[in-house]
């Protein structure tokens, strides 16, 4: 019943301050962008892992790494995690694999957050029709009660205890409360969202980017092969150009992914804005970057399927 008292007090406040609806479409855009960037970065990370594994196998074959070094250890120093595993020695590929799973979990957590935020923002807790029905019920019941008590309502009484305005006020209260709570949550979680995005960018810069730049020579060597003497000059040029194109596309994709993550925190803060705010710069740039990313990603997927 405490909420009913709060309801009455807040309803008065709303009458003075006015009310704006939560922009559900912004929350949907935010959710969509998170899903899009997650799909791309998870997939690039997966591909990178595969490529890294391949080059790692080659280095073992060339005896740059010994076989016992390849093993896994299940000894957990803390003894707390029965599923613990780690490489017996420093093997980048296996560390990348561990980090890759970390990335999947981190992205999944961010996506889930974006999803529940959208659900909360777009849930129609009480529809206009329901509110009108409630007002009608109150009016009918209270009028019957007053008639039973033989209370003279006077000539000025229009027959409705809870008029249209009061019903609308109650509806506004529900919407305003929903909005206020959402904004509180967004503000409280702004730091966490920024941290997660910065963390993923770190992963892109250390877990993925060096494999594109430093791994470029490995891809070139692989394309030219040991049999480069058997390839014609033209075939060599074509092989180099192909690796160049793939590398540039990969760099472009990573850059697009990074741009989306960099734009996410501002977009998250923008979720507090409504129709009344003319500029939703954060949400708009996020969506632009997400569309650009989708384009680059789709084109790479298409090319991959064709080749």
């Amino acid at each position, binding site marked *: 019943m405490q909420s009913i008292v709060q309801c009455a007090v807040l309803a008065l406040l709303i009458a003075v301050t006015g009310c704006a609806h939560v922009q559900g479409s912004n929350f949907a855009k935010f959710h969509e962008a998170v899903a899009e960037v997650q799909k791309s970065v998870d997939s690039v990370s997966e591909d990178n892992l595969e490529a890294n594994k391949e080059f790692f196998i080659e280095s073992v074959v060339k005896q740059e790494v010994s076989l016992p070094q390849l093993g896994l250890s299940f000894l957990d120093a803390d003894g707390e995690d029965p599923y613990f595993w780690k490489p017996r020695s*420093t093997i980048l590929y296996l560390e990348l694999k561990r980090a890759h799973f970390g990335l999947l979990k981190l992205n999944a957590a961010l996506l889930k957050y974006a999803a529940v935020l959208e659900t*909360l923002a777009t849930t129609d807790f009480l529809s206009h029709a329901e509110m009108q029905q409630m007002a009608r019920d109150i009016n009918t019941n209270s009028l019957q009660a007053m008639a039973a008590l033989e209370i003279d309502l006077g000539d000025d009484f229009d027959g409705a205890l809870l008029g249209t305005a009061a019903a609308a006020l109650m509806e506004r209260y529900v919407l305003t409360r929903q909005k206020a709570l959402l904004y509180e949550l967004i503000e409280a979680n702004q730091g966490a969202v920024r941290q997660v995005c910065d963390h993923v960018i770190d992963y892109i810069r250390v877990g993925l980017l060096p494999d594109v730049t430093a791994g470029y020579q490995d891809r070139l060597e692989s394309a030219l092969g040991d049999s480069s003497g058997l390839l014609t000059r033209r075939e060599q040029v074509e092989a180099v150009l192909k690796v160049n194109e793939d590398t540039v596309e990969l760099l472009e994709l990573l850059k697009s992914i990074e741009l989306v993550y960099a734009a996410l925190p501002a977009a998250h803060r923008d979720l507090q804005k409504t129709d009344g705010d003319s500029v939703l710069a954060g949400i708009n740039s996020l969506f632009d970057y997400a569309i650009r990313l989708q384009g680059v990603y789709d084109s790479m997927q298409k090319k991959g399927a064709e080749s």
Partner: protein
Amino acid sequence: MSAERKQKIRFINVLASLRNELYFERLEQLEAARNPDIPDARRKEHLEWAQALEGWSKRIKVEMDELRTGFLRQWLDGADVMVQEMARATAKVDEVHKDMEQTVEDAQVFVRLVGKLDDVIGIVRPFL
């Protein structure tokens, strides 16, 4: 991002670019060594230089892999903490959702109470 982390990331990426430059310098040396018009001593110099570049490239790769491995281990620890943080944030949103549902439920209870008023009055009316 801390300044130290930022610097480490930059260093890793500089090493990656450097390795790439060494590779092309090595290819240049190998191409030069294939030139049939140069004396053998000069060819030997090119080949030795190419071999030295390959050695440096391998050392850079080892150094870079070490740095990346250390960084990724720390990264993973940080990621675990953030996953928990996001789970808490998500749970809080769920709580608010439930709270909103409760608010609406309270409003509906109020309407039902008003409905009951008529019944109560019916009971007490004979005594009024």
